[in-house]
């Protein structure tokens, strides 16, 4: 049981895809202009990650190793397209904001990375937990970055404005350059925290 929990928790901090592994960075910068967008993108990716991890783990003995990459691509692309279509139907506003970054889940390195490095070698249950952990690790990172950029850039949080309409905000953080700088400083912050934790233990 402890082993399974480890598969889940590693994605949240030690192997966090955004801050520690630095993979799947495009949506981290592109769709985090608000906390809600970050959360939506994170959950969409988590869904694709869990589904494809489970399926690839189930099929690991069926797929010949020479064609495993095309097979993974088809599986991941199918789930990304399903998310794309379902989101378009039921959450049209969010779908419009996330735009091409929903179909682009298919080329998110996290997906291929977990399929190749984990799901193709492990049991269904631990692959699902690995996917869930990695997905939620990605989600909290995106939501945090989105929240910081939204608070500084638009003076609101989860679309609730807490400053007057006329108040000046740091528009810089809504713009592309602000995305890069926010992520850079957050990574530095994570490094400081991790170094402290290492020293303490």
């Amino acid at each position: 049981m402890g082993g399974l929990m480890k598969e889940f928790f590693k994605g949240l901090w030690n192997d966090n895809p955004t801050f520690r592994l630095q993979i799947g960075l495009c949506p981290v910068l592109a769709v985090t202009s608000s906390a809600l967008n970050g959360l939506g993108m994170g959950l969409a990716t988590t869904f694709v990650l869990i589904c494809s991890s489970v399926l690839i783990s189930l099929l690991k003995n069926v797929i010949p190793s020479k064609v495993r990459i095309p097979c993974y691509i088809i599986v991941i692309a199918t789930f990304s397209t399903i998310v794309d279509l379902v989101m378009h139907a039921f959450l049209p506003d969010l779908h419009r904001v996330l735009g091409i970054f929903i179909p682009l889940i298919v080329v998110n390195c996290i997906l291929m990375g977990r399929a190749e490095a984990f799901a193709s070698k492990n049991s269904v249950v631990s692959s699902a937990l690995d996917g869930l952990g990695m997905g939620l690790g990605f989600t909290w990172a995106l939501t945090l970055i989105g929240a910081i950029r939204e608070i500084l850039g638009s003076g609101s949080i989860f679309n609730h404005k807490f400053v007057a309409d006329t108040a000046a905000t740091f528009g810089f953080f809504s713009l592309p350059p602000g995305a890069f700088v926010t992520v850079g400083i957050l990574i530095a912050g994570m490094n400081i925290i991790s170094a402290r934790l290492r020293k303490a233990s």
Partner: protein
Amino acid sequence: MNESVRMIVVLTVIAMVSGGLLAWVNDWTGAIISENQLQAMMASIQEVLPTATRVEILSSSPSTLVEEDPDQAREVEQATTEMFIGFDDNDRPVGYAFVGEGPGYGGAVRVLVGVDGASGKILGISIVSHAETPGLGSRIEEESFRSQFVGKTLNDPIALGRDIDALTGATVSSRAVVQAVRTGFEDASIAYERSR
């Protein structure tokens, strides 16, 4: 089983299952998506043409446009592929709405413009879709910016710095809206006159 045969079989089966699954999901969501888009468009039309109780899509019957000069008629038809005519309770046309497009900072900005049929004045505009920067360019959606267009006719300049003030720090987005309003305005008014 021969290895290469197995590779082909596995790949083919996975691709077929994937294609089938997607076709089914597409069927299921397709109807909802187009229904949503229609609903959203109708709600926007209601906003910019408040007096209309019934709306007709003009481009669904382009033959009504083709009259004297076929070349010109085709042009009109193309420019106003998305045009709607509003009718009141007595089935009299009260005005029209059209969708214009302008190049914004993050892509095309699409604007729905409602025009009063009798006076030719703009009743209101509504942003259909845009990909502008949140907090800056996205302020084109704000009432204070959109209301500047109300009351303008084809005889007004409708230009930044003349009768429309640009949003601070979002000139490109503001210009896109101005251009979107202007594109198709003339064509739409001609098409409306002809349709009566």
